[in-house]
Structure formats: structure tokens, C-alpha cells
């Protein structure tokens, strides 16, 4: 076997931990031994080789060009002499402090992050990610030590505003919604999107909730809504790690820049101006026939290269949504979730995880509990909050408001400080961040009558 003659692209694919999507793509190691031998070879590859050899050619792909052109050589200098294996060992030492990792981040390329993650065990991924700190701001401060934020996801199969409001109230009463109140719309046209944006804006305004709203539609629809004067807090887009995969989502870097600038121009944040919300997930490039023979985890890390260009408030890897042909079971979903979180954090992103599965994957609530508990210990920035973990619009299972309360209680984590203060003012949380029984007289319970149908 001539591992040393392999291209980086092939070597990364052979070294990547076993998962169904890479088998489907026909690029996985043929057997367990080949996989481990590839990992041993990868461990000896100098990090500097990643700057000379691109997994997708520079000329062919604008994501590669972004990664290479924006690489910060000065930040890279302290680790420029390391191999991938030495980098892994160093990350685990006390020399790699929060401050060091923050300074290093612009010097790490997505492929370097992916490579090192492939050599790491679960405990390594957790320990290093927990040292990274990424703070972002819009109407509150996300990512502070000792906090865990939640996206409130009040989806409804027909976008019924009373139904959405009911789920929103449920989540707020469980201390959720500080990352964003974000709706996946069932009907994706600008009139409907605008209607939902006004509804969320009205709720945030009348209850003075220190959070932001988002309706998760295509950037072009959001820009049209902005143009029509709709109250857009965050601009959402699904992104991937190759130019071709992004094209299948109907976006490129120029369009993302335009959307970013349009949203910034509204100036609706009072704490900061991180206005983008990105979602990603391993396997999306292959499903669009746009993987270029690169393994799904490396491509996922490249999507974070795209994300960091636009200083997002939130990046969410929707880890188990895509189905068993990419991540077959709980074990594969679990490892993928921790890799994504680690790579995102190492690259300087406010990384959250949609801890989730579909009914045709070999996974259940126990698997989700394990991943939630591990991510809580990794310092995960935010998770999803879906009523009873059952998304009745998207037909998959995510984490619930109760799950969020569990992990906060177990690890003594609080919401973003501004939001925690608001929860205290409404007697939803006590000072320690524990849930209080909601009185019938609580004025938040009037929320559903505020909604204009």
C-alpha cells in the first residue's frame, strides 16, 4: 500500500472514521486496517502541505480560493512546523489556552481542522472544543462561559400564526429562545415570509424580549423582504463546502455578501452586528453530486470556511437530518456532531448543533441524550428547542425544551445574560437559572392573544 503517494484528498477520505455517506460515495477505506494505516500516514503529514495541495483545485472552486486567499500566515506561524499528529498532541496540552486558540484560528484552514479531528477520539474532540471561546452579539450576548443558548423552533405545518405563537410561548416558559426564535416556513414565498417576520417582531417588541427572530428562507427571499421593509433580524442560508454544492442551494459567495450587506444595513441589533445564521450538515454536497471525491466531513469543515467570512451570530450543523445513507446510526451521528462542533469552534465559529434523527435512521432518544450530554460538556454554543422534541412540520426529532432544561440543570449553565435577566423579570427563571412554576396570572400567558391573525 502506497499511502505516502496518495493525494491529500484520498488520504483524508481513507482516514475518515467509518460512515455510510463515504461508502456511498465510494471513497471510504476498504477495511478497518486500511483506515487506521491511513490515519497513521495522515498523522505524519506536515500542516504546511495543506497550503500547497488543495483537495479541490484552486482554479475550479471559489470555496478553495476563499480558503487559500484568506489564510492568515502570521496566525499560522506558531504551528507551521507541526505535522497533523503533532498538532493534535499540542491541542491537548495546557499550552493551547483559550487565548492561544483564538489567535490561532485564522491560521487554521478547514482541511487542517478536518484532518486533525479524524485523528482524535471523542474525549479529545470534547476537551479541545471546550477550550475554544466564540462570542457573538445581536440583541444579546451568545457564547459566554457558563451559558448555553437555545434556538426556539416553533414550526407549524401550515404556518398558522396562533399555532406558532402557542409553541413560542411554550418554549419561552421553559427558558428557551435566547439564540433565536427561528421558524422554518411551510410555504416559501415572500408574502408569507413577511407575515411571519412581522408576527415575530411584534412578539419580541411587545414583551421586550432580548432576542432575535429569523424566518429560515432562501437569501434571495429574505433580501426581497428587506427591500419591502420587512423587519429582518437575522439572514438565514443553508451552505455547503464546495462551489457546486452551494450552487445547488442557489447561492455563491457574491450573493452571500450581498445578503450580508443588505441585512447589516437595517442595523436592528442593539448589542452587536452579527446578522447571519447559517445551517450546514455532513452529506449535503454528495446529495447534490458536488463532493469532488472529498469525504463528507472535510467538505463540512469547508462550509465553515464559507461561514466565517460573514461573521455569523449562529452556525448550526443539522447533524442527523439527512438520513441513514449519510450517517447510518446513533454512533455515526454522535461522532459527526462532535466533529462538526470541534471543527467549527477551532475555526472560530459560534457553533450550535441540531441534535437530531429521522425515523429511518438507527437512532433513538437515548442516542440524542448521549450526544446532548457530550455537547453540553464540549461548550456547545446552542441547541434546538422543539416542543416535545417532535417537529411536526419537518418530520424529524430534535431536542426539546425539556432537554434544554436538563442539560442546563446538569451542567449549571444559563441562557445569555440579557435573556436570563428577562426570564427573571417575568418569574420564569430564578436567579440560579432554575425553572419556576408559571402562575396563571403571568403576563406572558397573554402572548397568544397578541397575535394578529
Amino acid at each position, binding site marked *: 500500500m502506497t499511502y505516502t503517494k496518495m493525494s491529500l484528498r484520498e488520504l483524508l477520505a481513507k482516514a475518515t472514521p467509518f460512515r*455510510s455517506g463515504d*461508502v*456511498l460515495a465510494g471513497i471510504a477505506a476498504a477495511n478497518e486496517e486500511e483506515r487506521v494505516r491511513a490515519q497513521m500516514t495522515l498523522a505524519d503529514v506536515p500542516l504546511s502541505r495543506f497550503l500547497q495541495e488543495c483537495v479541490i483545485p484552486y482554479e475550479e472552486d471559489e470555496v478553495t480560493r476563499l480558503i487559500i486567499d484568506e489564510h492568515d500566515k502570521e496566525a499560522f506561524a506558531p504551528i507551521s512546523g507541526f505535522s497533523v499528529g503533532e498538532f493534535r498532541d499540542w491541542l491537548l496540552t495546557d499550552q493551547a489556552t483559550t487565548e492561544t486558540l483564538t489567535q490561532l484560528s485564522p491560521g487554521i484552514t478547514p482541511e487542517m481542522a478536518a484532518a486533525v479531528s479524524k485523528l482524535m477520539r471523542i474525549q479529545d474532540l470534547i476537551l479541545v472544543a471546550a477550550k475554544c471561546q466564540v462570542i457573538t452579539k445581536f440583541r444579546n450576548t451568545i457564547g459566554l462561559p457558563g451559558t448555553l443558548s437555545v434556538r426556539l423552533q*416553533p*414550526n*407549524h*405545518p401550515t404556518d*398558522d400564526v*396562533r*399555532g*406558532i*405563537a*402557542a*409553541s413560542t*410561548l*411554550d418554549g419561552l*416558559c*421553559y427558558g428557551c429562545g435566547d439564540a433565536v426564535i427561528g421558524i422554518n416556513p411551510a410555504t416559501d414565498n415572500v408574502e408569507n415570509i413577511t407575515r411571519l417576520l412581522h408576527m415575530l417582531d411584534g412578539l419580541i417588541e411587545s414583551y421586550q424580549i432580548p432576542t432575535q427572530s429569523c424566518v429560515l428562507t432562501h437569501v434571495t427571499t429574505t433580501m426581497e423582504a428587506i427591500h419591502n421593509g420587512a423587519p429582518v433580524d437575522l439572514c438565514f442560508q443553508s451552505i455547503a463546502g464546495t462551489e457546486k454544492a452551494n450552487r445547488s442551494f442557489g447561492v455563491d459567495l457574491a450573493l452571500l455578501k450581498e445578503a450580508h450587506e443588505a441585512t447589516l444595513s437595517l442595523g436592528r441589533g442593539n448589542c452587536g452586528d452579527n446578522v447571519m445564521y447559517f445551517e450546514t450538515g455532513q452529506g449535503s454536497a454528495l446529495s447534490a453530486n458536488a463532493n469532488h471525491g472529498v469525504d463528507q466531513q472535510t467538505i463540512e469543515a469547508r462550509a465553515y470556511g464559507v461561514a466565517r467570512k460573514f461573521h455569523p451570530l449562529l452556525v448550526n450543523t443539522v447533524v442527523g437530518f439527512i*438520513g*441513514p*445513507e449519510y450517517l*447510518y446510526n446513533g454512533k455515526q451521528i454522535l461522532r459527526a456532531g462532535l466533529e462538526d462542533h470541534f471543527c467549527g469552534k477551532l475555526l472560530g465559529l459560534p457553533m450550535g448543533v441540531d441534535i437530531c434523527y*429521522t*425515523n*429511518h435512521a438507527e437512532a*433513538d*432518544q437515548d442516542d440524542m441524550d448521549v450526544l446532548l450530554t457530550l455537547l453540553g460538556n464540549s461548550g456547545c454554543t446552542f441547541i434546538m428547542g422543539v*416542543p*416535545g*422534541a*417532535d417537529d*411536526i412540520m419537518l*418530520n*424529524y*426529532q430534535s431536542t*426539546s425544551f*425539556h432537554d434544554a*432544561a*436538563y442539560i442546563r*440543570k446538569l451542567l449549571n449553565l444559563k441562557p445569555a445574560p440579557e435573556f436570563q435577566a428577562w426570564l427573571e423579570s417575568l418569574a420564569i427563571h430564578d436567579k440560579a437559572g*432554575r*425553572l419556576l*412554576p*408559571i*402562575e*396563571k396570572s403571568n403576563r406572558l*400567558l397573554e402572548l*397568544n392573544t397578541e397575535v394578529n391573525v
Partner: protein
Amino acid sequence: MKGEKISVLTRDPWDALQKFTEARIALGRCGSSLPLKESLKFKLAHAKARDAVHQPVQMEMVAEQLASQGIDTLQLVSSVKDREEYLTRPDKGRCLGTASKKVLKNQPKGYDLGIIISDGLSAPAIHQSAVGVACGFMEILKTTSLSVAPVSLVRYGRVAIGDEIGEILGVQLTVVLIGERPGLSSPNSLGAYLTYAPSPGITDESRNCISNIRPGGMVVAEAIRKIAYLSERALVQKMTGVGLKDKMIEGYFPMENLVVNRPGK
């Protein structure tokens, strides 16, 4: 306190809002955790959805039911060998197996329309709704001069397998009825995918889809009307997909005005 039960559950006093949504809201809590009753309810729903994914489809039964209505069928299998391979190899689920290909190649060719029924991700969806939809739609087709291929019954098929079948049989428009990815509260959803000029390699933006056909979702009668409407428009406009919009009016009577020009016939 003797003999009295201590209340351990904290109620959520907004359960009146449950009338606005099927979402699992106002579940209450014990400490901050989910009460057992709700936890088991969820588990039962998941168990039903899991069973739906793994339950084998009874295609012989489907064939018998269709035969009793005078509808001819063909039994086909994709290249997939078992359920696990079906879940991990969507590429194989899109291609017919060798034996099935042979069966099809020996069939007469050239039809206006072909119906394909495949298990997909939910056998219960097939058992509950597929025969009803297929028979109802065939009833409407009988009132027209459209020629219809025998109904293909495909085990372990993905939506795109209809493209290969349609091409081999020389069909202008395929209607694939397939078990959808089961939701927690809807393990039995049937989907209908319409593809004009089917041929392998066609992608999803060239199809029209009607989803959530099940009791409590889109009922069979309405699904038949919608399939008939979209089929009629597809044959007239000679396309399916993003260019074919669903503008069905309330009083639409299926196939009333259908005139199809058949080149070479």
C-alpha cells in the same frame, strides 16, 4: 399526609393553547424533566414509525386487490437486496434489478401514462392508501382515450426508479406512488410524484409532488383529484416540475376537457 399522594408534577397552565397546534406543548414537568406519561407516548409514536420503515410490503396483496378491479400489474424489484441496503444505498434503489429489467423489456411499449407503486420508506402507506389512489385514478382514466401501462409494483424502490421503468415502457407521464419518510405522528404518508418524459438522470426539480396522502392528512379522494389535475396539465403542457404550477380550482372536474395529441399514433 397519611394516605395522600404528593403531587410531583408541575402543570403548564397554557394547555388551552393545544387547540392551535398538534405540537407537543404544555406537557408539564417533573423537576425540569418530561413526565413519564409523555415520555412513553413519544416512545410509542417512534415505535410505530420505526415499524413502518422495517415492515415488509405485501405486493402480492396489492396485486390481488388491483386484479379484482381489472387492473394488470407487473411485479418488479430494484437492485437492492435487503432493507439495510435499501436505507444506505439510494443509488441502487433507483435502478431495476436484472431480472426485472428483462420482464419489462418483453412488455409492449408506448403508453400515455404509467402508474408505479413502490414501498419506499413506509409499507403501511402502501397498504392503506396506494390501491385506493391507483384504482380511483384508473377510473378517471377509463373515461378518457388515454392508454395506460400495467401498474408496476416495485419492491425497494426510490422515486427515480419510475424514470427507468417509464423509459423502458415508452411512457409519456409516470405517476409514482411511494411510502414517504415516516413522521412521528404520520407513519403512513403516501407521496405521489409526477414526471413527464421520464428518463434516468432526471432530477427533482422536474417533478411535481403531492405528499402527506393518508387518513387525517390529504384524503384519498382529494389526492386522486389532484393527481388527475396535474396529469392533465402535464400532458397538455408537456412538462412537469417547476414550470407546472398547481392552480386547481375548487370545482375542477378531472379530465373533462383533456385533448392529447399523440405524435406518431
